[in-house]
């Protein structure tokens, strides 16, 4: 078994190494036809840029994406600067330089990867998946009989912020930086998923398609790990199946198929304000322009946030979304499960969390307010602040840095729910409903708690569950995503997630159950 696992680990690492090294392979050459295509597609009017590209780029072979990218982005920047100085606004190209460069690179890459997309898919994804499964599946035997097997988690460098954890951290952060800010460096990655993308939407793969596909793959493989680890726990199994289903079908397949039918890309479960650009003018325009379905999406999006989300939270707690439906939660609960113990449980962290997560919610709402005001008033700015600027700041700080780079990149260091806990505006909204108007609670089983601390240690949201359990108090916390792990790891059967009447949800407990009744009466009389 150990040998199979080592083989699996080896294959996985080979796959990962090939995947990483793909960036450096292949060549880029822009033909005159490609340039013409770009010029007409993007209706480029800047003769500066066109000339610059013609002399410095066209017909030349670039041996790596970095040189290629720097050539194109600098050409773009120089051209834009000149036009701005001359106030030739019509000639300025508003694309982000690296997205612009990505589009050219996607068309201009040549070499072995583009010619053998299938082969490279197998060498990267294929080996990675196979290796990971070979590593994971023997756990059925190596973990021992079904039950909580957290053995060695705090002794292993991958899961106790050791060197492997830091390595994974650097790798993930690097990945997200490339994905969000340097897509032109990773065109080679997108080639290997082109065939899949074409079969779904008919288009070549963008970096976002690559990300979506990778996301589903990682979640599926890590869900297998969850199924094995928690095979004695039906709540965990159903929950994992549910998030996997919503990710693959709702966040990945349906949107791609919508695109195939020339409808807008839309993830039906992605609720505002997590879906922060839902009310952006381009999205509203696009929806309104796409006929019946567009209007349906518009109405659905609003009803989802205003009615479905709070009503479901009332009945089931925010877990229905965060641990059963949401894609961010889905990744956190699969890829992130090995890191859940790393969340900070201190009171300080809790205070910090409340400020920042509600801060993001306010930010999202203010931004949306601005957006809608400008949309309906036709103005560009409110109180002298340009809506576009706010949107850009939000997109950069929250959408990219917080949700991506920090949210997932920091898994191996700060635990798997960094984004959900500190950054997600939807979680903040759900949390307020859960805290004040919900039937959901985690019931504490009388006086059975032995203060061992397993529950707090494994709470990914950094809730000090023990602090409540040892006092016999039910756990009612806005941040609880109802993952059920605290109840799973408790060795004394103290915790139960349940939905019940609001009466008695918050239980006063001066004295724990077990001490005699007179004492209770005594305290009540006081």
């Amino acid at each position, binding site marked *: 078994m150990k040998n199979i696992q080592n083989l699996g680990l080896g294959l996985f690492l080979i796959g990962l190494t090939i995947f990483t090294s793909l960036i450096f392979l292949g060549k880029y050459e822009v033909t005159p036809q490609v340039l013409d295509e770009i010029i007409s597609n993007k209706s480029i009017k800047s003769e500066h840029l066109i000339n610059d590209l013609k002399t410095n780029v066209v017909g030349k072979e670039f041996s790596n994406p970095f040189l290629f990218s720097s050539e194109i982005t600098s050409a773009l920047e120089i051209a834009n600067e000149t036009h701005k100085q001359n106030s030739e606004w019509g000639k300025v190209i508003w694309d982000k330089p690296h997205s612009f460069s990505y589009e050219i690179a996607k068309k201009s890459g040549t070499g072995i990867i583009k010619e053998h997309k299938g082969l490279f898919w197998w060498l990267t994804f294929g080996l990675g998946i196979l290796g990971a499964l070979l590593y994971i599946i023997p756990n059925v035997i190596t973990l021992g009989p*079904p039950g909580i097997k957290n053995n060695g*988690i705090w002794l292993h460098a991958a899961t106790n912020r050791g060197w492997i954890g830091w390595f994974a951290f650097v790798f993930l952060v690097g990945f997200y930086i490339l994905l969000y800010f340097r897509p032109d460096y990773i065109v080679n990655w997108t080639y290997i998923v082109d065939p899949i993308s074409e079969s779904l939407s008919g288009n070549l793969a963008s970096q976002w398609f690559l990300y979506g596909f990778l996301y589903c793959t990682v979640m599926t493989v890590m869900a297998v790990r969850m199924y094995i680890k928690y095979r004695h726990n039906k709540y965990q199994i159903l929950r994992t199946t549910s998030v996997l289903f919503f990710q693959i079908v709702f966040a990945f397949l349906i949107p791609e198929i919508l695109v195939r039918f020339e409808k807008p890309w839309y993830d039906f479960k992605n609720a505002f304000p997590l879906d922060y650009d839902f009310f952006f003018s381009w999205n509203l325009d696009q929806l309104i322009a796409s006929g019946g379905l567009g209007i349906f999406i518009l109405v659905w999006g609003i009803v989802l946030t205003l009615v479905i989300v709070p009503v479901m939270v009332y009945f089931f707690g925010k877990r229905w979304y965060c641990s059963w439906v949401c894609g961010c939660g889905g990744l956190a609960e699969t890829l992130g499960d090995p890191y859940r113990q790393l969340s900070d449980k201190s009171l300080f962290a809790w205070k910090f969390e409340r400020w920042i997560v509600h801060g993001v919610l306010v930010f999202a709402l203010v931004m949306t307010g601005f957006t809608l005001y400008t949309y309906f008033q036709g103005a560009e700015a409110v109180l002298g602040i340009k809506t576009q600027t706010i949107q850009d700041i939000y997109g950069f700080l929250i959408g990219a840095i917080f949700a991506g780079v920090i949210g997932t990149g920091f898994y191996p260091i700060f635990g798997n729910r960094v984004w959900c806990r500190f950054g997600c505006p939807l979680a903040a909204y759900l949390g307020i409903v859960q805290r004040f108007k919900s039937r959901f609670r985690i019931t504490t089983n*009388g006086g059975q708690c*032995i203060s*061992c601390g*397993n529950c707090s240690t494994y709470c990914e949201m950094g809730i000090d569950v023990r602090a409540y359990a040892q006092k016999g108090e039910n756990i009612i916390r806005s941040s609880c995503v109802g993952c059920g792990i605290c109840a799973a790891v408790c060795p004394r059967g103290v915790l139960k997630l349940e939905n019940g009447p609001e009466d008695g949800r918050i239980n006063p407990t001066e004295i724990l159950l077990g001490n005699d009744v007179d004492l209770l009466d005594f305290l009540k009389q006081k």
Partner: protein
Amino acid sequence: MEHIVIIGNGISGVTAARHIRKLSDKKITIVSAESDYFFSRTALMYVYMGHMKFKHTQPYENWFWKKNRIELKKGFVKKIDSENKLLLFAEDDSLSYDKLIIATGSKPNKFGWPGQDLKGVQGLYSKQDLENLEVYAPNNQVCKHAVIVGGGLIGIELAEMLHSRHIPVTFLVRETSFWDGVLPKEESDMINKEILRNGIDLRLSSNLKEIISDENGQAKSIIIEETGEEIPCNLVGLTAGVSPNIDITKTSTIETGRGIKVNRFLETNIPDIYAIGDCAEQHEAIGNRNPIEAVWYTGRMMGETVAQTICGNKMAYNPGHWFNSAKFFDIEYQTYGWVWAQPKENEARFYWEHKSGKKCIHLNYDKNTKELIGINNFGIRMRHEFFDKMLNEKQTVTYVLEHLADANFDPEFYKLHEKEIVAKFNLENNTNIQLRKKSWKRIFQTS
């Protein structure tokens, strides 16, 4: 300001301190030689197993004590001078008190086995024991084999711990079946199987004769009394129960038996000195309870009670219905009320076991009145409040079975077995009990 000094920063001492702080403004000092801060002894196993780090076993953050004006003093109390209300420390300083609470806990039993003080021979009680384990049994290279002596709750925990690091374990149990002084035969059998299932070399009816030393004064093997068999090993775990740790009373006039003798108010024979937790012994047992109760919950309850008394609401220790819990490898165990190993004269039993052999319930009730006396549940979680209510209201076994759906505390979507349980009872007793549907209303009426 009155100065309350507490010896021992375990659950009893700390609970007392917390409640005294809640109720009053007195000066409070907790003394301990073991650790700087309160930690959960019950969680020691999880540190060795790598589920947690030591700091996770500490229920309160380090700033908590200062914020609540509870002073912590690290030191070993050598002598209590009750005449002058003074504590003398091994470190040669002293501390005066107005009221003293002794909460010094237990220590592992040693029965005078030859070799019991060798290196690599230890109990599992303190933080230091945990540290020693890292020295003598960090992995299966250093510790090629371990022997555990004594089949109780701590013994099986130690077996699970060593097993988690792939160290082969031989488990010597004096009784004919695991923990059969407490568990009825069926449950005890189930746990025997669970131990074997986990690859532990379980030796029932086996006593330790002696531990043999190597040339460096470290244990190298043990000999079994009954068979004379010698088992080579690098670690010997002595887990044959615990006894009250009352060393500090030896030079004082505090009355002791096996533990520090206290009355129902947890007062010792010396005014202003109280004893709580594992180290206390009731003059007279309360109900069916043991005069010495060495469990977490009772320590906590005594802490709560003595705090009331010290703060002027004189209150007797008056525990409610007995409850307890444990985990045997993967099988969780809870108990409410009493289910003795052997049924008493007036008792009838009902036992149900799931076909997996990993779940069961055992009901104990009065033969004639049918009143519930207690339940053991293994592999199924049950609601504490439910059974507390049943016992308070003196409900019959019929009533309990009818409402069993209210009692289940397993996570959502778990398979429920109530129907099967009730059907079995009906079959065996010729009754026609109908299972009622779970009712939130009933569940929440309890409190």
